[in-house]
């Protein structure tokens, strides 16, 4: 359902469309997945001050997965990396895509997305762990022994994190015996968290975020659980 259409002003080579289903693509259409009517919108690196309800903030950076030529002479290039909407007095993260070259392009970058990955992962586990691998729509790490267990999923290649400020990881973690930890994050080597990470013992399925605004250069994403019986499921890893 399309809730709002805005933009396409004279001289501007873009249209902003809001709705919970993707519209039919037209070149330089920005689709924001939202059920809230769109007010105005702003492209900026910093959070707009005094926003009105429904306002979209297209966060910009020095580069983007989907750079947009915003004027009809193709002389003004913007680099959007994230989208928020001002709803009920707070900025709420929204997914945005741009239709370019006949396809919808994510502004951010999925390292892993509900069973699909372009990145490739290596899975390792020791004899105290049950599983480490892909299972349906998630990465599955499991241990049955309350101590010494170790299971890891590590991206096979490093990703340049320089354009991104936030890693959003959708995961769940259980602990049925012992004291264990689930960690997700980034390191200079596969399976390492020597650069930035989020860690928990248990977590109901939700999106957790890691501040990667200080990470400049290429790093490996990894997820692991150590010690403690239980399951960890990683559903998506998104950089924005």
């Amino acid at each position, binding site marked *: 359902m399309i809730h709002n259409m805005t933009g396409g002003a004279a001289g501007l080579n873009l249209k902003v469309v809001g709705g919970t289903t993707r519209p039919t693509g037209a070149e330089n259409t920005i689709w924001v997945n939202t059920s809230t009517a769109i007010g105005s919108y702003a492209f900026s690196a910093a959070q707009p001050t005094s926003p009105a309800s429904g306002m979209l903030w297209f966060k910009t950076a020095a580069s983007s997965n989907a750079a947009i030529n915003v004027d009809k002479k193709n002389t003004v290039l913007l680099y959007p990396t994230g989208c928020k909407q001002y709803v009920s007095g707070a900025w709420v993260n929204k997914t945005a895509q741009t239709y370019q070259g006949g396809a919808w392009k994510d502004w951010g970058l999925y390292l892993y997305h509900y069973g699909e990955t372009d990145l490739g992962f290596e899975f390792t586990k020791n004899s105290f762990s049950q599983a480490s691998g892909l299972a349906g729509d998630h990465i599955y790490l499991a241990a049955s022994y309350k101590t010494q267990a170790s299971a890891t999923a590590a991206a096979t290649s490093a990703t340049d994190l320089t354009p991104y400020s936030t890693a959003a990881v959708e995961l769940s973690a259980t602990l049925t015996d012992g004291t264990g930890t689930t960690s997700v994050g980034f390191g200079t080597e596969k399976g390492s968290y020597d650069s930035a990470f989020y860690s928990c013992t248990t977590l109901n399925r939700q999106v957790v975020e890691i*501040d990667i605004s200080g990470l400049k250069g290429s790093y490996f994403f990894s997820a692991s659980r150590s010690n403690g019986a239980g399951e960890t499921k990683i559903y998506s890893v998104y950089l924005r």
Partner: protein
Amino acid sequence: MKIYIDNDCICHTCNDGTMREFDAAFFDGKCAAFIEGYRYVPAGEVWTRDDGEVFAGEMVAPAVDSRVLEACQKQYEALLPLIPAEVRA
């Protein structure tokens, strides 16, 4: 490694009297410049970035350019063998 965090969750190696103390294995073997370039959000707490993004702990993340921190740490590790053990302690 014992660290201290200020109200913005920035790590320090010395407590000025206003900070909270934590033990964080992540910082074992790290030099002061590396540690003080990091942010540590304890489990059960949140930290809000300047752009309004909220991050839940436990989270460890660089607060400044990671390339600078890595260069400091490499230099520290290269010099470490030259520092007498009694001074290191």
